[in-house]
């Protein structure tokens, strides 16, 4: 079972962790904390991103939290895990860095949320299973996941599999209640769930927003719970709580349209 830690700094050597987030600034803070952990352990580090905005945010946090490791943050073109005949695998740069530091290195690639969608989800989860099969290793690995990008109807499956494929996890503290709500789906698969979160989960079940499966080993969203999550993530009042959400979900229900209507609808008489 996955073990939660309060911050990415505390992720131990040998860990393969997920870092859940709901905004870019939270993702950057988590990465800064992760590198602070590298510094305290004397490990070399590598952080790869394909996003210029995240590069800037990461460097800002690393300057604050782990000065001296600024050069660890690098921009790459495209994903840090790419298709091969046997599934997604890390790019050669990642594998070479790991091999070059047999004493252990701190590594993270943040590109998965950029490319995560309904079509890629299965391949990404398979990739995580494969990566976890490489343990035990002396490294520290962090896999950031944007909770606002996981398809709501696949959230319980995705989070359960992510929990099973990682040794450790860092929960999001994003103010959007939709983010807090969705990550409750992780709790049955966590070794040390926080008591407060367990209380929220129990309440969510009582309110009919989630339901336990017959084995009581996992929870799923009910149809109403799924719409509740979509409302929290998709309606302006809540989306604005995370103003720098990595995926803009604000719907123009309150204002003028600023883009052409899409032709996904077929009228019939």
């Amino acid at each position, binding site marked *: 079972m996955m073990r939660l830690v309060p911050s990415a700094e505390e992720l131990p050597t040998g860990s393969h962790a997920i870092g859940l987030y709901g905004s870019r600034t939270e993702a950057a803070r988590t990465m800064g904390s992760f590198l602070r952990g590298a510094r305290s352990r004397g490990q070399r580090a590598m952080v790869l991103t394909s996003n210029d905005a995240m590069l800037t945010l990461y460097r800002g946090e690393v300057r604050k939290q782990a000065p001296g490791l600024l050069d660890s943050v690098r921009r790459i073109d495209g994903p840090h895990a790419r298709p091969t005949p046997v599934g997604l695998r890390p790019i050669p740069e990642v594998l070479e860095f790991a091999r070059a530091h047999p004493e252990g290195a701190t590594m993270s690639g943040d590109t998965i949320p950029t490319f995560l969608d309904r079509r890629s989800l299965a391949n990404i989860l398979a990739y995580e299973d494969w990566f976890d099969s490489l343990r035990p290793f002396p490294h520290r690995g962090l896999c950031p996941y944007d909770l606002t990008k996981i398809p709501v109807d696949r959230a319980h499956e995705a989070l359960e599999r992510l929990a099973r494929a990682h040794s450790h996890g860092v929960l999001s503290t994003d103010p959007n209640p939709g983010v807090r709500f969705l990550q409750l789906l992780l709790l049955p698969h966590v070794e040390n769930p926080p008591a407060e979160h*367990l209380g929220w989960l129990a309440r969510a079940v009582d309110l009919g927003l989630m339901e336990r499966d017959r084995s009581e080993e996992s929870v799923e969203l009910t149809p109403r719970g799924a719409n509740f999550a979509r409302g929290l993530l998709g309606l302006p009042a809540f989306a604005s709580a995370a103003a720098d959400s990595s995926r803009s979900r604000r719907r123009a229900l309150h204002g003028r349209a600023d883009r052409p*209507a899409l032709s996904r609808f077929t009228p019939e008489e």
Partner: protein
Amino acid sequence: MAGRSRRVAGAAKNGATAGAPPKPERRPAPSSPREPVGKVDRVLAVPLSQLFSPDPDPTKDFPGQSTEVEGYVVTPGQVVTVALTAPVPEGVDLLDSIWSVLRRKGIGLRRMVLLDDRGRMVSLMTLQLRASTETIRLFESMLLVPVHAGDGFAEVHFLAGSCEVEALESEIHKNGRPFPPPLTIRLPAARGNTGLRPDEWAFLGLLSALGVLDGPDGPTAPMVAELLGIDTATLAERARAVERGLEGVVTGLFSWPSSHESEEGVPS
């Protein structure tokens, strides 16, 4: 004959069970702070035959197939816009047949179809209901979505006290269209509702079915308003009402300390 949208191959779960009325499994739950004590989720297995009468019930032509009424909105003049969904490709013919019957009966006014990215067809139907305003208001105040329908039955959830169910039956009889007695009533066996009223859940379900909440690629506000037959100001007003209701749910969910959980679960 209703047109058919481009079919998209894909696996989809079929939740229908052939033959007997659906048997929901629920456990008792508290009522929410926003509803009077005594309202519970009552599940009725309602035969669909009289809904489509004198036409045969189209759901019986598709054994094992089902559709979900995911959301709806009622507008003046007893007009309701409802979103039905079914998996693609298995459920497409069922949705088409339902529309054909309703259109033939003069109830169906307009239909739009959408293929969403969850492997489903969304059939957005605008219907002219033959029911009084009072009857519709009763339904709006009690009917919980989604409604699962197939194989001749609809699993309908009403959030109601016993007096309200009697009032609904009385209202329907008064309108001269006897509602078939429900085959099965599951007494207080469900969750309590939350800070959203049933009609607000229905509107949220409608927005969800239309893909409005899924990100920036969904339909725009003017398009949604046109689809639902309302103006943008009304759309905005309803969306804000849903947001306020969701805030109530959030408050109840995250400010409810686990140490105060009781058998009834009613917050102090």
